[in-house]
Structure formats: C-alpha cells, structure tokens
C-alpha cells in the first residue's frame, strides 16, 4: 500500500504541496471541488454557536473535507493537537471548545499557511493557541502530550503515513482520541510513481 519515495520524490511532493497551499492561504475559494469557507463549515454541521464567535474572514479560510468534532466530544481543559492546521479554523474551533483551561497547538508545513493561521488568531481574543512549523512525520512534542489529535484533509498528503500515525500514537496520552477527516482513494493506487509524485497535491 505505501510507496517508499526517494529523497528527490519527497522533495518534489513537498514543493507541490507548498505551491498549492501558498495560494490556498490567500483564499481557498475555487481551489477545491467541494464547498469551502462558511458554506463548507455549515455543510459539515460545525456548531453554529462556535462559528458565531469567529469573524467572516476567518470562516472564509476554511477548506476542510469533514468535521472532526462530529466524531467525539472535546472537553473543557483538554490539550489538542491539530496536524496540518492550515489557516487554523479547526484549531480555533478546538480552542473555543476546550476553553481557557485547555490548550491547542496547530502545526503545518507551509509557512504561508502558518502566517494566515497567525493572522486569523490575532483577530480573536484566544490565548490558548500556539502554532509551529513542523512535519507530521516528526512531531516536536514529548510522549503523551495531548488528549486529542485532530486532522482534516491532511494525511492524504503525507508521504510516510505509517510513520505519521506512529507519531500521533506516541504524543497521545492514554485514552487519547484521534479524530480524522480525510480523503481516501477509491480503487487502485497508480502504478506509476512519477505521475503519483506529480499529482500528489492536486
């Protein structure tokens, strides 16, 4: 199932992701085949009470493929990690949900996305959120750091998924939950590695 990419292929995959998502950081509108922004959030039935507390330009930056918060209750005071936080709409929803006693960390690979995330955070009064540039394959956190790990539309972009899942397991506390929304490929993997690398982030 997994393909072992060489370092050149991994570099090109990373460049493809950076190329697409630095444009998405400006606006996701028209760059996905499903609804983004407020329409996407409402379509995925995010809590309207939570959405009400975020400004329209924050909501407009949403490009998730599902609602991780529909999978389980995230409780007040919990520590949450958002892998591939993008413009941070899920990170901010988590921060509102866990309240001031909780904390949320968002990581992403694309610097432009993290800039947008930080700009979005500044438009809120939330004090329990931090962002870091980091790869899901090597999480910069000690073992058992988080009660919940969320991720939305990101694991399909990670070259070494098994390594990233081992990292999620490591940083979760005992009884911790992993809530995942993502794209899965229906049918066979392309046999041709070259076209896979070229089309990775499309």
């Amino acid at each position, binding site marked *: 199932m997994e393909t072992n990419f060489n370092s050149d292929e991994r570099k090109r995959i990373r460049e493809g992701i950076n190329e697409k998502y630095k444009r998405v950081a400006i606006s996701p509108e028209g760059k996905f085949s*499903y609804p983004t922004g407020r329409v996407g959030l409402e379509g995925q039935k995010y809590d309207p009470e939570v959405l009400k507390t975020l400004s329209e330009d924050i909501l407009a930056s949403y490009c998730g493929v*599902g609602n991780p918060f529909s999978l389980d209750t995230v409780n007040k005071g919990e520590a949450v990690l958002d892998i591939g936080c993008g413009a941070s709409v899920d990170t901010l929803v988590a921060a509102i949900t866990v309240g001031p006693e909780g904390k949320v960390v968002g990581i992403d690979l694309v610097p432009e996305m993290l800039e947008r995330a930080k700009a979005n955070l500044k438009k809120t009064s939330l004090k329990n959120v931090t962002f870091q540039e980091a790869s899901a394959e090597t999480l910069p956190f000690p073992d058992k750091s988080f009660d919940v790990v969320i991720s939305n539309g990101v694991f399909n972009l990670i070259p070494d998924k*098994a390594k990233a899942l081992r990292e999620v397991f490591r940083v979760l506390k005992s009884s911790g939950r*992993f809530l*995942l929304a993502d794209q899965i490929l*229906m049918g066979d993997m392309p046999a041709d590695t070259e076209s896979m690398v070229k089309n990775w982030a499309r």
Partner: protein
Amino acid sequence: MLNEVGFVDVELVGETGFNSSPVTKGVLCRARKSAISDVGRFEMQPKDALSKYQEFFNAAYAEGTLDRKTKHLIALGASLAAGCDP
C-alpha cells in the same frame, strides 16, 4: 494501519460528501489509544518473564499446609488492607 500502530476502537464512521476528485472520497474516522497501552507493552516482554511469574503464582497458591481457598482469602484480605485490587 491504525490498528497496526496500536490504536483500539478504530472506526470508519462515514463519508463527509466532500470529495477532492472523482477517485477520492471524504471520510471520517476515529481511533483511541488504549488506557492500558503501557500494560500492553509489558505483554510484549519475552515470554520467559511471564511464564516465570506464572510458575511463582502457581507455587504460592499450591495446596500445602494451607489449602488453596484459604491462601486466596488471605491474599484478598492483604490486598484490601493494602488498598489494592486483588
């Protein structure tokens, strides 16, 4: 893959309806790290350690001057007094 990593209660909950391309589907999935994942690691120890412990356990509770039932009742009393589950 989630099970192989050690997660439990792995569940593909459903489709989101947001598909990136005609050949992919948006899905929701949840998994949990077991509360006893550290105990799980103990189970991975060489079988020797476990079988030696089992030998000790069987020897301690073997019928002798005191019968097996009496020994278990003493162990139960001791564990309750120590505040631990028998």
